[in-house]
């Protein structure tokens, strides 16, 4: 099971878990339609595109309404704390939620009680909570952008708003150093996929790959283009791809989707998501058929 967890901006949406369907415009979870906009909805939409293309099991989503007061987020944490061992997902993606360090710690502890520990992926404020609580090394993958990379590299910051100015102002060429610093003080997951003008793939503090083409600068302005990378990454790992290959594919396909969508700063994320199948097609042989891949724990 690929389980994606996060919030949506509708306070009335109850905590809901189930398989997700996607019809180009909307996501459907338990019969309820959700707009595919920036945030966890975009992440889920991108994951759905990958699983549909590969013919693998559709993602399951655990979503709840929360506009920032945190009530929905707390119910989501509590649900995971209680139910993760029985759900036992193969890949667990944690995304938009109020960062609550104490609850995140209990979620990670719960994940470690699964019969087989899930691949733990965190982005957005779930990543903030994991880092601030000192849990980063217990995660398999974080997917920060440049400013969030500075946050991970700052041992004292508990949110990107409080990151040291010199780290925030660092040039993107400094990302390898920031990644190494984050790894050394325990602010990084085992793998980092750092999204930016060049996407860096980092393992244990060391850069092992970069993706920089096609170069679509407008992608940085489009809300949701980081979310789509994380969603695709989770779907590829769930399909059996190795972490490094999945990261490369997600970064490359995101850029190609921008190219196919003729992205400008005015483009909306749903147009990028709609272009994902064409971008995947460009990366794979046209007769590509997915097999459930190797044991993700054995990938290197």
């Amino acid at each position, binding site marked *: 099971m690929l389980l994606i967890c996060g919030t949506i901006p509708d306070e009335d949406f109850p905590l809901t878990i189930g398989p997700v369907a996607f019809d180009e415009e909307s996501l459907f979870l338990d019969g309820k339609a959700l707009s595919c906009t920036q945030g966890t909805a975009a992440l889920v939409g991108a994951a759905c595109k990958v699983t549909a293309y590969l013919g693998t099991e559709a993602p399951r989503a655990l979503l709840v309404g929360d506009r920032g007061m945190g009530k929905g987020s707390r119910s989501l944490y509590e649900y995971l704390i209680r139910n993760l061992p029985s759900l036992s997902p193969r890949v667990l993606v944690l995304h938009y939620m109020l960062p609550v*360090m104490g609850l995140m710690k209990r979620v990670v502890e719960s994940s470690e009680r699964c019969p087989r520990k899930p691949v733990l992926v965190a982005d957005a*404020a779930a990543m903030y909570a994991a880092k601030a609580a000192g849990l980063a090394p217990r995660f398999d993958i974080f997917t920060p952008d440049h*400013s969030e990379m500075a946050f991970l590299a700052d041992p004292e910051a508990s949110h*990107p708003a409080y990151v040291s100015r010199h780290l925030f*102002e660092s040039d993107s060429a400094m990302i390898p150093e920031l990644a190494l610093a984050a790894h050394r003080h325990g602010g990084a997951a085992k793998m980092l996929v750092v999204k930016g003008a060049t996407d860096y793939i980092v393992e244990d503090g060391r850069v092992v790959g970069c993706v920089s083409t096609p170069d679509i600068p407008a992608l940085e302005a489009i*809300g949701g283009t980081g979310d789509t990378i994380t969603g695709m990454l989770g779907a590829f790992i769930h399909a059996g791809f190795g972490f490094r290959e999945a990261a490369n594919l997600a970064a490359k396909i995101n850029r190609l989707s921008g190219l196919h969508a003729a992205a*400008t700063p005015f483009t909306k994320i749903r147009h990028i998501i709609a272009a994902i199948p064409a971008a995947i097609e460009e990366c794979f042989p046209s007769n590509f058929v997915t097999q459930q891949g190797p044991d993700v724990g054995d990938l290197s």
Partner: protein
Amino acid sequence: MVFDFKKKGQSEGGIILFNNVEEAIAAERLLMAAGYEARLVAPPPALRKGCDLAVEINLVEQTGIERLFAEKKAGYLEILPVKGKGALLGVVKVTDFGEAVMVKAGNMKLTFEKESGRVVNVSGGGCPDIPYLHACLIDKKLTEARRPKEYGYTLCSLMLDRAFIESLDIWKGNGGRS
């Protein structure tokens, strides 16, 4: 009950300092009634000022808490992170895309159209108020949209507010056209 800051469990990163004990007790009650998790603590010695009683909060919720205190005219000295230098990031970066300008503050980016001053995209962030603020801001003119910190709750919304204000300044500074 007052907890010793060092002896309690996982800190959520933020602390509110007060002029006197009465303010601290009233603030804790106000926060709990509004749905925030908060508790009275003895402040760490390095941060101590005002009285010897403080309220521990989730630092991320600073924006909503400051607004609540302002609305209720609750007294306090300041809200600080428990670790670090205590300064919110004030610097912004600006990228010119030709027909649009992107302003980045911390982890938040706001992009507006030069011709109209219309918000065309909001990206970055990770707190749960951001998708809602995104939906509220898209296609609104900077001069007509509400400031994010008026209805956001988190530090991400505060960073978005800084990007918004900088965007507005750029827009106005160019005679309504960047």
